[in-house]
């Protein structure tokens, strides 16, 4: 059983974020989650903080609150993100930049704030939740895919900048996972996705959480700058 740590999961109010927060809590860690508008339905054992990750001041305030309540953040899971799907010809500037801001720039802001404390403690784990579409591309998701691909460059640069401080930075790239985000798609789309997956099904948020928790654990101390797909084999080789 690893040393209990203070964990922050952004966008931890539902889906992969919530599953991840709960797994960390079950392992005995002190877990904080941020949410933009809807507080989690079931946040037992979690410290929920309202925070819009596109606002640097709100991130600062959130970290200050968490620091006071649970101690300095040692593990960060940058998971908050949005989609605004549409074909490129119909995509307005805002549709592109807003998604980039919420998914990529926010990741940068959260990481920048987190490393300050991690540097002092000479220990840290940062995990970015990317997506297989970052590497594989997806029609209708140019903005989302671009933001998710960007996280890899960001993560690897952070990994190199902060390696000397015993801070590892990794990426998980989920494939199609059964969450609200996917529920928004028509049934036939979800069916088609499941069929495109070698393992023949969608993944569960817990399965992604499992890999995230591993990356944050002592067992993954020699893993940094890695991109780990959790996609049932969908994008293997890409």
């Amino acid at each position: 059983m690893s040393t209990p740590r203070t964990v922050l999961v952004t966008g931890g109010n539902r889906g992969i974020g919530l599953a991840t927060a709960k797994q960390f809590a079950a392992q005995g860690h002190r877990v904080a989650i941020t949410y933009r508008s809807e507080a989690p339905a079931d946040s037992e054992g979690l410290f929920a903080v309202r925070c819009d990750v596109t606002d640097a001041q709100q991130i600062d305030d959130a970290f200050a609150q968490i620091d006071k309540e649970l101690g300095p953040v040692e593990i960060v899971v940058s998971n908050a993100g949005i989609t605004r799907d549409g074909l490129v010809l119909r995509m307005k500037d805002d549709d592109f930049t807003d998604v980039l801001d919420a998914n990529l720039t926010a990741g940068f802001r959260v990481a920048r704030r987190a490393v300050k404390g991690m540097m002092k403690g000479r220990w840290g784990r940062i995990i970015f939740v990317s997506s297989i579409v970052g590497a594989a591309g997806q029609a209708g998701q140019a903005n989302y895919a671009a933001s998710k691909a960007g996280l890899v460059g960001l993560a690897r640069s952070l990994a190199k900048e902060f390696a000397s401080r015993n801070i590892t930075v990794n990426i998980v790239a989920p494939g199609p996972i059964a969450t609200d985000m996917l529920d928004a798609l028509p049934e036939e789309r979800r069916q088609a996705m499941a069929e495109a997956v070698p393992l023949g099904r969608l993944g569960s948020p817990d399965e992604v959480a499992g890999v995230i928790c591993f990356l944050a654990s002592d067992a993954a101390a020699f893993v940094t700058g890695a991109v780990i797909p959790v996609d049932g084999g969908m994008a293997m080789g890409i």
Partner: protein
Amino acid sequence: MSDQDLFERFKRRAVEVLSVEDGQVKLEAKFADDLDADSLDLVEFVMALEEEFDINVEEQELEGVDTIGQAFELVKSKI
């Protein structure tokens, strides 16, 4: 506050952040060559000084600051 007192506080932060001995923190000491400080150490050091002296140091002002003495002059100019 005298220069001497100021330097004492400055030195304490240097020892703490750069993990060096008090005796190593001489005005001529070069961050990279003498104190084994990498760029990240410097960032940490500047942040500690900003906190200690309630000052703000812009990125550009650090250009050319290679020694303890130069860093100390920069801090003094801001108090």
